[in-house]
């Protein structure tokens, strides 16, 4: 493992019966990096991410996250990561404040920490007035920003974001990405999957998954040069055209 590497996968594979969802993927993510994990629907992004988060047992291959082995030390990994799933999964019947308190609490944070951090986030998101509203009453864009804040509430080393901006308007998407940048500036490694190719441009490095395999992995500039494309959109289309798995 190179120094400063926080995620390392080698031949990581997940098979469901005959179907190979993730097919021997290998990559490294460095500390503080924003790593874009691109791919069409069904390419295996979410499955790969779930293996790294300790939610899904790999079929074969090796991987470490934050220096812990995904097979044996999955609970230790969970202490070092934050996770925001594709599906909004904060408690809608709890208030904004209660959600933060709950997640802070189960990560073992002290009352003082929770109080301070809650105040900071509420101010930052300009949600002070809504602090005691049930989460279900918030608009989607706010919910997504809140979900991200909760995912990094306990100040994890790495945060995994699974299509965090799905269905969100462009203005909110930009705000969301500025939140990601802030987290990265503070040394948090960001592992993010997305469909939006303009978002890929925000990433330090991206990998493109096609049919369970990683077909390309580099900085966006290098990828565009290699595939003789003007935008990441073009790069993606060139690679994804060969995909056999549909939606």
């Amino acid at each position, binding site marked *: 493992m190179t120094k400063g590497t926080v995620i390392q996968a080698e031949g990581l594979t997940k098979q469901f019966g005959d179907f190979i969802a993730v097919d021997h993927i290998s990559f490294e993510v460095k500390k503080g990096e924003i790593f874009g994990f691109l791919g069409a629907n069904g390419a295996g992004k979410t499955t790969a991410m779930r293996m790294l988060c*300790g939610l899904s047992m790999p079929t074969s291959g090796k991987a470490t996250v934050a220096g812990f082995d995904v097979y044996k030390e999955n609970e230790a990994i969970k202490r070092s990561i934050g996770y925001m799933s594709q599906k909004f999964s904060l408690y809608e019947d709890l208030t904004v404040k209660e959600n933060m308190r*709950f997640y802070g609490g189960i*990560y073992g944070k002290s009352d003082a920490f929770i109080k301070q951090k809650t105040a900071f986030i509420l101010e930052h998101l300009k949600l002070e007035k809504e602090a005691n509203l049930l989460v279900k009453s918030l608009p989607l864009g706010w919910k997504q920003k809140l979900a991200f804040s909760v995912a990094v509430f306990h100040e994890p080393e790495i945060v995994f974001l699974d299509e965090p901006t799905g269905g969100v308007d462009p203005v909110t998407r930009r705000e969301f990405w500025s939140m990601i940048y802030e987290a990265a500036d503070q040394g948090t490694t960001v592992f993010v999957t997305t469909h939006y190719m303009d978002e890929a441009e925000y990433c330090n490095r991206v990998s493109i998954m096609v049919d369970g395999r990683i077909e390309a992995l580099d900085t966006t500039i290098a990828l565009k040069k290699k595939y003789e494309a003007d935008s990441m959109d073009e790069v993606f289309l060139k690679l994804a055209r060969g995909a056999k798995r549909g939606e």
Partner: protein
Amino acid sequence: MRTLKFLLQKEFRQIFRDPSILRLIFVMPIIQLMVLPWAADYEIKNIKLAIVDHDHSTYSQQLISKITAGGYFQLSGDPVSYDAALKLVEREEADLVLEIPSHFEKDLVKEDEITVFMALNAINGVKANLGGAYLRTILQDFNREVRLKWVQFPRFNPDTQVEVVSSNWYNPLMNYKYFMVPGILVLLLTMIGANLTAINIVREKEIGTIEQINVTPIRKAHFILGKLIPFWVLGMLVLTLGFIIARLAYGIIPVGSFLTIYAFAAIYLLAVLGLGLLISTYSSTQQQAMLVSFFLMMIFILLGGLYTSIESMPLWAQYITKLNPVSYFIDVMRMVVLKGSGIGDIKRQLLVITGFALLFNGWAVWSYRKRS
């Protein structure tokens, strides 16, 4: 422990914010305990009886008025023949037919022996059986009265007569409500316990929040305790509410101690909640969980000894009831409420139910996976 505190705080907040859960917990017991014991009646009243009186004598009239005086029988029609009476049965206007022969009085006086004929509509088996039994008792009574009046007793009674006099222990007035109310309370506790836990966890699966929990370093045991404790508390609350209703509405005060009942209920609830957990770990949608728990509840209720006594079931069915936690609690409830049994008397049931609690919860913890 701190993790548990946060989990409990969250669960209680969610429960008290959900009006449907509160309604289920408080309104369901009240309605069930106020309505069911009156409707689910073991006593058979208003049996429709068609009497074909061929004799029209003083004695036959006496017999008829004796039958109707008890309040169990209602005369329907005044059929002139047996066939006419059967017509009444076909039209469901009569459940029983009693045929008094034409020489009823004459034979009774002269020959000291009569035969009357009784026909039962056995479509409603319980009604026919009980009605038949009531009628037989009335006829015997009548028989004895007539003998007392008419027959000159010899110095030594030629027939040895064994008369059975019964006395109903533990429920002297045979008040079936004493019998039903504690049983219904057990069913309530079972349904609330198993259903609520199962649905609660499966709902977290459906919404996706369980994934967010699984990705935290939370311990399995903490998560499960965080789900069990709130519903355990609610279950004990329902039990208390049930006893308050039993006392106010039916005047039922357990002969035995509340401590015995609560001690058993505490463990029983753990077993039932464990079952709910188990159902939830094997279901991925609320419909699945509901159907499975419905299926189990039907078996538990019908083989629980509330509506039909376990002793009269075929042997194979009796073995099944041994696997039914409900049957143990109904047993214990009746023992303690009616007979005043103490902890020492329910040791066996306590042991078995502890076994169930360990089995269901152990199985649930084992089969709950944070990683798929």
